[in-house]
């Protein structure tokens, strides 16, 4: 199985089988997801001495997270799965974050930074939610036991979330270290292999991103290049080989 993680500022690619990881690569490309992801697929196949054509499923993190990164990852997963005629396994970034923190003994709450002062989170046994850190704190204050927050939303807003939760009479949640800040491709692959074994797959056409927020409905005129100031001397057309 090929695993593709590009829902945050990281890009991760892994090849995994029932026995575990065969090869993995993680990069922090800034926002250059589309420039980084495909060469990483080539590199991981090469490192595992496995041709891409032998892959039997594609697993992808569908978000929530960076819209651009999610689209690049889901489009690539669709391209590989469609072209090879293999199924797609989808996982949300919150599920991957929780999977990565499986060894944590506390109640794990994954929190993704959604920008504009909002976060997405999933309290155990509940649906994903999108809201302010105050909304998250209200959820946390109602939790039984001590919570550990993981994900980039926890790292960015940790102090505010802890203060708001305590102010509401809840126990102060712990904030994870940075290694649980981004959904890792190894955790994605592990979760994907389990889902594939359980038959929880979809196909390339149906795999969809999880944005959690309606589109910004702002019309924009198509960008165009700056005007040419000087087109330069005209070359001799007769010199062209046909």
């Amino acid at each position: 199985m090929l695993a593709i993680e590009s829902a945050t500022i990281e890009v991760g690619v892994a090849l995994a089988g029932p026995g575990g990881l065969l090869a993995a690569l993680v990069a922090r490309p800034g926002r250059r997801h589309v420039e980084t992801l495909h060469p990483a697929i080539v590199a991981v196949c090469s490192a595992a001495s496995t041709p891409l054509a032998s892959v039997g499923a594609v697993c992808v993190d569908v978000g929530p997270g960076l819209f651009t990164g999610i689209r690049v990852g889901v489009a690539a997963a669709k391209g590989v799965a469609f072209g090879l005629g293999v199924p797609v396994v989808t996982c949300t970034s919150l599920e991957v974050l929780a999977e990565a923190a499986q060894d944590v003994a506390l109640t794990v709450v994954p929190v993704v930074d959604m920008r504009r002062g909002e976060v997405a989170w999933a309290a155990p046994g509940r649906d994903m939610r999108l809201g302010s850190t105050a909304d998250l704190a209200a959820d946390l204050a109602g939790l039984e036991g001590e919570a550990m927050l993981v994900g980039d939303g926890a790292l960015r807003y940790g102090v505010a979330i802890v203060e708001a939760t305590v102010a509401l009479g809840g126990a102060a949640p712990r904030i994870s270290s940075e290694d649980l800040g981004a959904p890792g491709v190894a955790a994605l692959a592990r979760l994907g292999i389990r889902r594939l074994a359980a038959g929880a797959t979809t196909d390339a056409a149906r795999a969809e991103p999880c944005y959690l927020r309606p589109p910004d409905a702002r019309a924009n005129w198509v960008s165009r290049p700056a005007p040419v100031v000087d087109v330069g001397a005209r070359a001799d057309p007769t010199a062209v080989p046909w």
Partner: protein
Amino acid sequence: MTGGDGLVLAIETSCDETAAAVVEGGRTILSSVVSSQVGLHERFGGVVPEIAGRAHVEQIVPVVGRALADAGFDPTGRPLPATGREGRVGAVAATTGPGLVGALLVGVSFAKALALAWDVPFVGVNHLEGHLYASLLEEPGMALPVVVLLVSGGHSLLVVMHGPRYYEVLGETVDDAAGEAFDKVARFLDLGYPGGPAVEHAASGGDSQAVPLPRPMLAEGLDMSFSGLKTAVVQFVTRHPDVRTPDVAAAFQEAVVDVLVHKTLAAARAVGARGVCLAGGVAANGRLRERTVEACEAEGLPVFLPSRAMCTDNAAMIAAAGHVRLASDGSTSIGAGAEPSARFPVSPP
């Protein structure tokens, strides 16, 4: 480069159309599928980038699957048994720019991944260069050099094509694109979206002489300007609130067409062109087509008007341009990204 038959699958997602096509040998269109999002953007009076990006993700697999099936191929790029064909699709091309970045990324990411899955070359194509090949697909015998007026919602260019991959930009808009002016005037006059067809429809019942409008930069070289014309429309209607909307639409359309036809003929004379052709969405405008033919015939200049389907964004033209690009430059790096502000590719001979 592209296998025995030179079969190229191309994907175009630069703006609000998700399109895919299979073209053989850069010339023969085996299939061309276009899924328009116009209904999604209509109520905003323009293309909403985030909505466009999301719609491309939803549409890409059905559109590519349909283009392959229509051409007689399965999703792995191999011919369907019933077709009796042998060669498989030999390359995947995609528009890399210019266009909306969030829209371009979907096509580029999908196309590169498909090329990897099929183990065939990926080739990135400049959208504007693609428009030049729309005419060549329909009229392969066109004598060169040919002057192409490329006018759309995002671009207004005059290009001379000397040969494959050998072009020069002769003139360009210094502000709004012609199609952008149509959209903005349509929005101001409350005519609907997209603006080109809406203005044309309204203009059909109007008198273009009834409203005096300027012809910007008419005598100033081959560059163009449409922003001031749009402002002139707004000012005239504000001062004359009783003016008939069809007259305003007709006068505006006539002013744009006057400028475009005048500049195109001037460009053709300047480079000694052996023909003129139109490209881009605005080239579907009936008045522009009519006036271009009249003007070219008056000068004895051959003129080619692509079908309306070839004027607007499609992937067949991207496949044709990709075929030429692959032959001249080889495949594009799998690490290529989108280039939302790509310029027209002017390459030396």
